[in-house]
């Protein structure tokens, strides 16, 4: 930040935000943009922002990056309640049910979107469905980012589990999967699978929910009622997960970065991870490919969420800025091939169907995830980066560490959820 920023900060602080904009139509509009993308994602997002700024001299988007997790969503809610939020923000699609009903975000104008060249036909059905609430569109998906399985083709080849197409063999049951992991372990002499979860409820949840949904069952969270869940499927999924951490198939305990580091240096043959780790994998230089997590319980399912653009509620709406936001968002969507390079599956179908995207490996090998997406159960308190996922960790971490029985851990979590559901709905 330069000296002018210091002065600007002082002026802004005196309450003169946005300076009587209408009279200065020729001036460059400042668009505030909040997101929670950091690391490799952050760099790619910044590049997309820069590209949009360059292409549109009429406005300048100023991003603010906030910490991923409950703090981001809390601040966004507080800013929207306070009436001076950024003009546009990124939100996980799974969190929208906590904001839309209470009026903290505003719906998108489909006509204005169409003017900028984006319509509902440009999105995969499940994703478009998720964007809506009460018949209105509240979020525009930039991507879907599923939880997938990366594998080391070298290790897999030596373990003899590669199919004829050079990709991993299909396995369709928990035992088959474990057998495959054990084969890989013999090659690496360390572990067959990497999965770090310590301290991260989100990480545990992603794998769990994939397995749960593979049972072909649903989970419903309706305020005022107990959680609707298939307990057997839930406990079975947890038991399976716990059985993986026996220090042969996978390390007994490690956090996310430890797991990634292990896989990246060839200490295992498979890694369960979000697609956003793809750049790290490529940088590590190992021969990596990817696929959706094998269907172990019959129904293909892939946990995923979407980074989506939302319009926080403005106390005083600046029409010009609002229009600029539409232009910015649609520009980013159209240029989201670079976002795909970060591992995500773009939400904008024209990019997904383009030749350039089809040539991206391993992205193309898991692009089918968009068709089998399992979004989080909807409620005001669930979703990515929610406290609910933290509660999951509180009850399930000990199960995965082998200190607690799966049934006990699940029941405790279910009880906690039911307590939440019994409380008055604040949105």
């Amino acid at each position, binding site marked *: *930040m330069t000296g002018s*920023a*210091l002065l*600007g*900060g*002082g002026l*802004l*602080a*005196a*309450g003169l*935000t946005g300076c009587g904009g209408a009279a200065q139509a020729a001036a460059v509009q400042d668009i*505030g943009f909040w997101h929670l993308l*950091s*690391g490799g994602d*952050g760099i790619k997002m910044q590049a997309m922002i820069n590209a949009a700024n360059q292409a549109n001299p009429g406005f300048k988007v100023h991003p*603010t*990056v*906030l*910490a*991923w997790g409950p703090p981001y969503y809390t*601040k*966004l809610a*507080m*800013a929207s*309640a*306070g*009436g*001076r*939020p950024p003009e546009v923000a990124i939100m996980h699609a799974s969190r929208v049910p906590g904001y839309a009903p209470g009026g903290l975000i505003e719906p998108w104008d489909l006509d204005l979107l169409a003017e900028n060249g984006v319509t509902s036909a440009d999105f995969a059905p499940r994703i478009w469905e998720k964007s809506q609430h009460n018949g209105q569109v509240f979020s525009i998906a930039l991507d879907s980012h599923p939880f997938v399985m990366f594998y080391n083709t070298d290790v897999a080849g030596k373990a003899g589990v590669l199919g004829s197409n050079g990709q991993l063999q299909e396995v369709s049951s928990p035992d088959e999967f474990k057998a495959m992991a054990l084969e890989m372990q013999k090659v690496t002499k360390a572990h067959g699978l990497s999965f770090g979860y310590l301290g991260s409820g989100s990480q545990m949840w992603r794998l769990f929910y994939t397995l749960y949904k593979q049972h072909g069952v649903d989970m419903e969270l309706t305020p005022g009622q107990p959680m609707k869940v298939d307990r057997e499927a839930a406990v079975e999924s947890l038991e399976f997960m716990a059985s993986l951490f026996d220090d042969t198939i996978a390390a007994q305990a490690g956090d996310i*970065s430890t797991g990634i580091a292990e896989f990246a240096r060839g200490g295992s043959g498979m890694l369960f991870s979000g697609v956003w780790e793809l750049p790290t994998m490529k940088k590590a230089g190992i021969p990596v490919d990817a696929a959706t997590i094998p269907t172990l319980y019959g129904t293909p399912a892939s946990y995923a969420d979407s980074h989506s653009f939302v319009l926080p509620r403005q*106390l005083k709406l600046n029409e010009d800025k609002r229009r600029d936001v539409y232009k910015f968002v649609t520009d980013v969507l159209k240029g989201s091939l670079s976002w795909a390079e970060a591992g995500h599956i773009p939400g904008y179908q024209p990019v997904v169907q383009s030749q350039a995207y089809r040539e991206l490996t391993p992205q193309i090998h898991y692009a089918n995830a968009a068709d089998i997406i399992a979004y989080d159960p909807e409620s005001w308190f669930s979703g990515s980066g929610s406290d609910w996922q933290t509660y999951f960790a509180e009850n399930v971490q000990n199960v995965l560490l082998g200190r607690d029985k799966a049934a006990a851990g699940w029941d405790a979590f279910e009880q906690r959820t039911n307590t939440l559901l019994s409380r008055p709905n604040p949105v």
Partner: protein
Amino acid sequence: MAIPTLTRPAPSTTTGNSLKIRQPRRKLTVGRIAAIVVAAVIAVLWLIPFAWATATAFKTETDAAAPDVTWLPPSGFTPEAFVKVFQDGNIPLWTWNSLYTSAAITAITLVISALVAYALSRIDFKGKKVLMTVIIASIIIPPPVLIIPLFYQMLALNLIDTSWAIILPQVIHPAMVFVLKKFFDQIPRELEEAAVMDGASRLRIFTQIILPLSRPILAAVAIFVFIGAWNNFLWPFIATNDGNLLTLPVGLQTIKSAYGIQYAQNMASALLAALPLIVVFLFFQRQIIKGVATTGLAGT
């Protein structure tokens, strides 16, 4: 309370003291050597966090994240983390925000607190006892109880995300009113009597007689309030979301994951944030220590 001795000057007020160390005949006994050693060990322990942060901040990012943890980095020391932080971050902006909000808070607090303290000390007015009781009672109120209604109030006044939201609630320091009043109580009334008889107004007496005599306590209060305002986290965290308005402690909190896991830069940012008050402390050690000790007794 204190009896003047040959070795120490008498304290000038009951709340202040010189913090001078008595210097009796100094024999280098085993006891003294042991004491120096223990004090030194503790001092080293206490300086380690600073030292380690500094060592990390001057490493390259790769060295800082290297599995081999060392004090001396293989690639040598480099200021690149600091450069990056300046380029990408907002430390100067946040420092400025902290500076002017803390200055405003200190100035306003001093003015309003001194005024009411003088009234409580010198003027006999109806309802004074009640006012005094209410002010003293309010010392008990813990700030966390106020955050919810204050947030809502700022929301209603449309002041969230303005610097007024940061400044206004922080100028209320009932404990400081009490401290100031106690000090004023000790100023001999004779000094004002003459002015009163000359028909001078209360305000003139206040500004021309009382205030000049109160420099030490005003400085002490100013220091205490300034440090408190500068380092305050909870309320500014709640009152502002806009990146341009963040004060240093709050802004620093946001960098933790914006940079991913960049240890050297994190430490560089932390050191830059720590710098202002530490530098001030190096220059004004005596005053700051005295001010904090004096006023800290009354405040919490």
